[in-house]
């Protein structure tokens, strides 16, 4: 019994928060400001508690498994959700259904936790659904905007389709191997066409969730239509979780098919980077711009995944950690601007530095980090991804990745230039920043600066990887 509580601690904690919120909803309810503060405190506590008392082991007939690396991955996601809760404070305070928003978001997070810990294909399927469906509801949270409903609709339809393919793949695997347990599958993989087909169907589900080209088409519409808090959750937390699971699934369960998935990952990575870059190059809307740039970032994550080594796992976790800081900082500032003025176009950002130096520096830091300019953490993140990818041997592939990194420099710097250099007669006026938001932005900024410089973080992650 004790084992149960300790091993499932991350999930139970999130579930507890959800239940607290549900009970609060039953009564008369608190004012939004108090409720938000309570949520933030609960999330801080949840995050802090995530560092201690982590156990290894499995439960429910291997349905559920956990170890130190998974606990770390879950807590990185916890930290990301906490940052989101802090960053969009002002928006949340005005949000009509704050309780529901967090219940849905945390349910999705709960799904991701189960996904990370799943040891069985059924568990895997259930948790991937739990992680997706609440987000579709979240996408609809701009109740007065049609574009938001459209986003939700597109998301739920596309993911239903993807789930169908995934379920098909799972049943084929069951048909071909007679088992659903991850630990049994590798030994039973014999390379029959049916199995490969099944594996590829399974893989498309990951590709869909991570918005790898050509499974990415829903991304831009959904990102643009959703409230910015949801967009950042989708593009950072959700992608991070799926990347973690993809690594362990490919490395552990489908290790015998390494030759197949190496080529697949390589091709998809190249296509994804190029497409993401080409589209990001011409976006005028900052949110859409971040959406496409995040597609390009996924291409880089795939470079790290292709390495098929402990270094690969480490560099992916390390990169996601940095990516959370960098991308959330950018989304946070975009959210502030959009909430205060309704402006989202990059041209509107011209001369922003004159009026809002603090926010400008945060955006510049985050974009430098996303572009991988030293000495920001993003540079080290990409460096380690490329190094671990290079260990797998295809230098042409790494070369293409490096060229894409240079292309991406151009469009990230375009935004920085608009903010710092371009003149504007009527720049965006000074924006008041809520203290909580300021704290979150400072955390992100220091994360961007420090994560790269403090080299033992990488080694610490490496020590946990197995």
């Amino acid at each position: 019994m004790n084992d149960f509580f300790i091993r499932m601690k991350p999930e139970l904690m999130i579930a507890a928060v959800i239940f607290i919120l549900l009970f609060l909803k039953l009564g008369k309810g608190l004012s939004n400001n108090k409720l938000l503060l309570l949520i933030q405190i609960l999330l801080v506590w949840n995050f802090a508690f995530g560092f201690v008392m982590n156990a290894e082991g499995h439960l429910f007939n291997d349905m559920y498994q956990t170890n130190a690396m998974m606990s770390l991955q879950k807590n990185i996601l916890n930290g990301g959700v906490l940052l989101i809760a802090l960053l969009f404070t002002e928006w949340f305070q005005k949000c009509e259904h704050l309780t529901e928003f967090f219940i849905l978001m945390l349910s999705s997070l709960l799904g991701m936790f189960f996904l990370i810990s799943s040891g069985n294909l059924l568990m895997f399927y259930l948790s991937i659904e739990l992680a997706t469906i609440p987000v579709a509801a979240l996408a609809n949270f701009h109740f007065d905007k049609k574009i938001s409903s459209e986003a939700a609709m597109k998301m739920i339809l596309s993911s239903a389709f993807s789930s169908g393919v995934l379920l098909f793949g799972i049943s084929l695997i069951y048909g071909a191997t007679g088992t659903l347990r991850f630990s049994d599958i590798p030994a039973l993989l014999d390379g029959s066409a049916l199995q490969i087909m099944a594996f590829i169907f399974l893989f498309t589900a990951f590709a869909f969730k991570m918005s790898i080209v050509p499974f990415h088409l829903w991304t831009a519409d959904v990102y643009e239509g959703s409230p910015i808090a949801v967009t950042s959750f989708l593009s950072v937390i959700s992608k991070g979780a799926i990347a973690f699971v993809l690594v362990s699934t490919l490395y552990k369960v489908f290790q015998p098919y390494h030759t197949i998935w190496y080529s697949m990952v390589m091709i998809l990575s190249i296509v994804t980077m190029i497409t993401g870059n080409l589209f990001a190059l011409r976006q005028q809307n900052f949110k859409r711009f971040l959406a496409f740039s995040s597609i390009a970032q996924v291409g880089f994550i795939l470079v790290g995944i292709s390495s098929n080594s402990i270094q690969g796992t480490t560099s992916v976790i390390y990169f996601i950690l940095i990516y959370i800081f960098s991308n959330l900082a950018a989304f946070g500032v975009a959210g502030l601007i959009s909430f205060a003025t309704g402006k989202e176009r990059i041209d509107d950002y011209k001369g922003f530095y004159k009026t809002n130096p603090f926010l400008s520096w945060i955006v510049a830091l985050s974009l430098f980090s996303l572009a991988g300019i030293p000495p920001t953490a993003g540079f080290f993140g990409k460096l380690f991804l490329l190094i671990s990818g290079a260990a797998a041997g295809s230098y042409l592939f790494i070369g293409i990745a490096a060229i894409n990194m240079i292309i991406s420099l151009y469009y990230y710097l375009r935004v920085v230039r608009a903010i710092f250099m371009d003149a504007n007669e009527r720049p965006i006026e000074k924006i008041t920043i809520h203290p909580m938001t300021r704290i979150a932005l400072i955390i992100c900024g220091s994360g961007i600066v420090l994560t790269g410089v403090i080299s033992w973080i990488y080694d610490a992650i490496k020590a946990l990887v197995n």
Partner: protein
Amino acid sequence: MPNPTYILLILLLPLASFLLMGLLGRSYIKNASGLISTAMLFVATCLAFYVAYGYFFMYGNVQDVYQKLILFDYTWLEFSKGLSINMGILLDPITAMMLVVVTLISLMVHIYSLGYMKGEERFAKYYSFLGLFTFSMLGLVVASNIFQMYIFWELVGVSSFLLIGYYFEKPSAVAACKKAFIVTRFADLGFLIGILILSFYAGTLDFNTLVQRLTSPASMGLKTAVASSFLGISALTWGMVLVFVGGAGKSAMFPLHIWLPDAMEGPTPVSALIHAATMVVAGVFLVARLFPVFAISAPDALHVVAYVGVLSALFAAIIACTQTDIKRVLAFSTMSQLGFMMFALGVSTYGGEGGLGYTASMFHLFTHALFKALLFLGAGAVIHLVHSNDIQHMGGLRKQMPITHVTFLIACLAISGVPPFAGFFSKEEILLAAFQHNPTIYWIALLTSGLTAFYMFRLYFSIFWNKSYHSHSEYHGEGGFAMMMPMVLLAVGAAVAGFIPFGKFVSSDGKTLISEFHWQFSIAPVALGIAGILTAMWLYKKQNSKPDAIASSLNAWYKAAYHTFYMDELYLFITKKILFNVVGRPAAWFDKNVVDGMVNATGNTTQIISEKIKGFQSGKVQDYAIYFLAGAIALAVCGMYIWM
């Protein structure tokens, strides 16, 4: 063993001062910021003395050899086994000496600035920059890893850039700080390539290992480095010369010196700290740090060091004779003295009697820091009173500023090599080392040393004697206690530092070097020095027309020297005319036609693609599903193909 915490504290205190003043200075601490920084630096200086004392007298010397101690080592970024960037502390005689020099001069400048910079609007920012500079310079001298040194090397460059450009409302200051930054950046590129070459052959970035691998004849790295050659010169020599280029940039060696005179646009105490005593000796320090490799494995590179050094010394001394801006004279004199230190290293050999040049160079670095900082501080006091840098606006100041007068005189005597002041001993050793190893260099150096005495006393007589002083503004004294105290302390140092038996502490191989004093040898330099002083006295003590007459009789030569031999114009010609036309134009054409063309093509392609994929990103979910399926099928086909 010593406690590394003390050395770490020496570094961290200035850093803390930088952060504190930078973050809180403007709004919270304001005028107290100077006092707080000074107090922090005072603690750091005491610790530095304590560490140096401990090293030289207690634990540093094991069986008559001074050890190279690694007190702290932290792997910061590991590339592969053995090749990593570490952050560490290497304590050896020159590090211990530099710790003392840097903290001491920095402390003096901190105190002096309390008076000199009083009432400046950005007072706290000034102190925060001083803190940053001190921190980076200390990081540079304790570096145990050549890449660590490079990082701090750049940091030193950045903080010097910030300090030169402190008066950023003056366009000339902005131009000067840009020039300093860009010129040294070019040199640093050489340094970086040098580091890459050395680390490639040695397989390490760690100083001790690198020196050991590149000097022991049995090591593979050394053999390949010597065997592989480019343009007939071995890779090792290339590497060492490139490293020296980096050092030459920082130490303002000819022809990379052009930034130093302009850098005088910064506040005068900054010049005392950065451009006299600390940053500019970084290049000398670098050569000294890698000295065993230079001396044992790459003697050709060492010859380059020697000749560049001696030519810079002579060249700068000639220019210094003609300048009329007090700080520019001092700048060229600094360059000349740095040349002395460089060629002293250049004529030295490793170990034993032959290592005299090394000891002499470090000795001169030490004494020069004292008297040159003093000269700059004195010049600052004069400028403070006269409100002009031009010596033609000065004269007869000895009555108005007696303390400055005496301290300045002591410093001038020291730099001219008049016994028994500090400069005499160190310069004598340098000349002796040159005499023993390379007569050509010795004769040039002897001439330069005579010139040194001449231009320094030209400055001295023009400021303090010559015409009588009439003030345009009200006489407001010499400057307060804060300004006089550091000058008096440094003057004491400049007077007595020569009696330190330096060879006992600092030598190329760590063993005690007993340098004998040959009084017969000293006759020529001292006589020449005194002749220089007397000439200056004859020409400049009283206002007369002799200097102008001489200048006009040497018209072309004088003009050339006055315009610093048109070096700046040459650079301008090279950059504007040659670089612009030969490199810039084609590059612009390439940029316009090829790069822009490619970028436009990318843009157009993107446009075309986006036109084509309007259906691709149509906004219709059913289409998305089709592409999803198509992707899945393509993957399946691809997967099957690979597997079969």
